[in-house]
């Protein structure tokens, strides 16, 4: 648990951070968001004393950060920054093992941990002998995350870690990080200026302006009840749409389907299910609806697959862009889990809007 007690930072005579009193819960991702110059990065850097607070205190599990020496304080936390900051003259292996080396771990323990981390971030172990310049931006940032996790710290500080990555890779890094957090349960302080990112990954969001904390709350609460005009503007006009990112498709799944083999298509007589997915060995050829069955093969449609963690907004956008009305949920471990209909998803949107106007 990280507590801020009357925390302030002054640069010359001006407050960069003003009188923060907050508690960050264990195992949660707390996102700090706000326009540039709002003090979010300064706040983050005070936690590991890269910037020394002018007034007030920060307590970690009840112990003041001033009771640690700053070097061992920093070694006890993971730190990821936008520039990634991998050491260009070190191999990936050496980059990941920096903190364990500083902590004087034994060779075997470091070896084991590095391999474990490569599996965790889903990169091949053959990368370990490469140098950072041989990796793509997204891969480098995964290594950056692995490096921060190397000594298995309880706390992870992340300063716009995905900010410099292109939108497609950023989305996959966000998905990756959300998945990772489910197993790791670290206490994460995450700085961003991207509201979509904040809503997507945050368990709690702190909106900052001019060094002050305007609102610190769960994403749903912030979207439902923005505290003032500033927060409302930050969320933008599409606040209602943003709320769709908080719902998962799995809540709308329908299971009225059957998987049939390619050669069974003509043989089936009793059309009991709403939807038939046509399997061709290890692939899926397409699907066919009950109502279209007698029309035969030409009504087989291409399947839009989504994964089980997908949120409503991304699914709706995907379906609209493909011109389809049905998406099939496919889970890597468990195969096909069911399907969702665009109409159901849009109805939710109307309901959400209704709730908001009340």
């Amino acid at each position, binding site marked *: 648990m990280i507590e801020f007690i009357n925390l302030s930072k002054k640069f010359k005579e001006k407050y960069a951070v003003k009188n923060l009193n907050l508690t960050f819960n264990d195992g949660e991702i707390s996102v700090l968001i706000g326009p540039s110059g709002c003090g979010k990065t300064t706040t983050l850097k005070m936690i590991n004393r890269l910037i020394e607070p002018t007034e007030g205190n920060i307590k970690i599990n009840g112990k003041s950060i001033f009771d640690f020496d700053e070097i061992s304080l*920093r070694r006890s936390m993971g730190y990821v920054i936008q520039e990634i900051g991998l050491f260009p003259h070190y191999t990936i292996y050496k980059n990941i093992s920096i903190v364990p080396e500083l902590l004087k771990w034994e060779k075997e323990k470091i070896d084991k941990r590095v391999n474990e981390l490569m599996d965790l971030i889903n990169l091949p172990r053959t990368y370990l002998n490469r140098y950072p310049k041989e990796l793509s931006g997204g891969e480098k940032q995964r290594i950056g995350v692995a490096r921060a996790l190397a000594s298995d710290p309880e706390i992870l500080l992340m300063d716009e870690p995905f900010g410099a990555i292109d939108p497609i890779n950023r989305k996959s890094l966000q998905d990756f990080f959300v998945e990772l957090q489910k197993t790791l349960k670290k206490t994460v302080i995450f700085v961003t200026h991207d509201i979509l990112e904040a809503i997507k990954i945050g368990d709690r969001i702190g909106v900052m302006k001019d060094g002050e904390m305007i609102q610190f709350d769960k994403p749903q609460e912030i979207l439902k009840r923005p505290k003032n005009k500033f927060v409302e503007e930050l969320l933008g006009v599409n606040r209602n749409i943003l709320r769709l990112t908080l719902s998962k498709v799995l809540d709308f799944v329908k299971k009225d389907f059957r998987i049939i083999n390619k050669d069974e298509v003509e043989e089936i007589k009793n059309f009991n299910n709403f939807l038939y997915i046509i399997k061709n060995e290890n692939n899926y050829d397409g699907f066919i609806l009950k109502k279209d069955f007698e029309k035969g093969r030409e009504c087989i449609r291409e399947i839009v697959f989504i994964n089980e963690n997908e949120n409503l907004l991304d699914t709706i956008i995907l379906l609209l862009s493909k011109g389809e009305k049905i998406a099939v949920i496919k889970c890597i471990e468990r195969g096909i889990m069911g399907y969702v209909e665009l109409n159901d998803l849009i109805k939710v949107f109307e309901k959400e809007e209704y709730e908001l106007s009340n």
Partner: protein
Amino acid sequence: MEYLLNNLSAILKRTYEHLYIVSISLIISMILGIIIGILISRDKKIASIILKIISILFTIPSLSLFGILISILSPFKLGIGKFPAIIALIIYTLLPITRNTYTAIMSIDKGVIESAKGMGMNRGEIIRKIIFPLSIPLLMAGIRNSFVLGIGVGTISFLIGAGGLGYYIFEGIERSNNNMIFTGVVTISLLSIFINYSLYFIEHSLTPKGVRK
């Protein structure tokens, strides 16, 4: 060619003398240059002032600089000989080393230093494990430039009685002895080329693999 072979031991002696003056000045200039380079990397304003002063010194033509040194050092009876030559060589070789040290430090990615700090490296560890290895390529290039430059200027320092390979060129001109001039030119050129390539080789092998081009 015959002249060259007949005077081989004298030539080697003068080569040694030449290298001696240049090396002494280069060692002093390396110590000074690296220290100044590191110190000025903390403040851009001071850095630009110091670098400007060193560049101005660098642009003084070598003959004038010897003249200036003679007039300054004569009262101490140090106006001619090896001492003013070494001072002049230090002044000339200081710029490439200082500038390259400074540029090397400044060109290290800020994110690398920041993350090193954030991961809990102390000042010494940051200098040893990051700044130093990453500065090697540019620093070595500066030393190489300085050395080659020093060999050239060292030739002229014969005129103020510092000895060295300049003897063959200047004496050769005086006596209209083409063999002597030829000997001087060839030895100095070979020396420069040899030094340049051996330092280049060292530079390359000291450059960490991950930052090689």
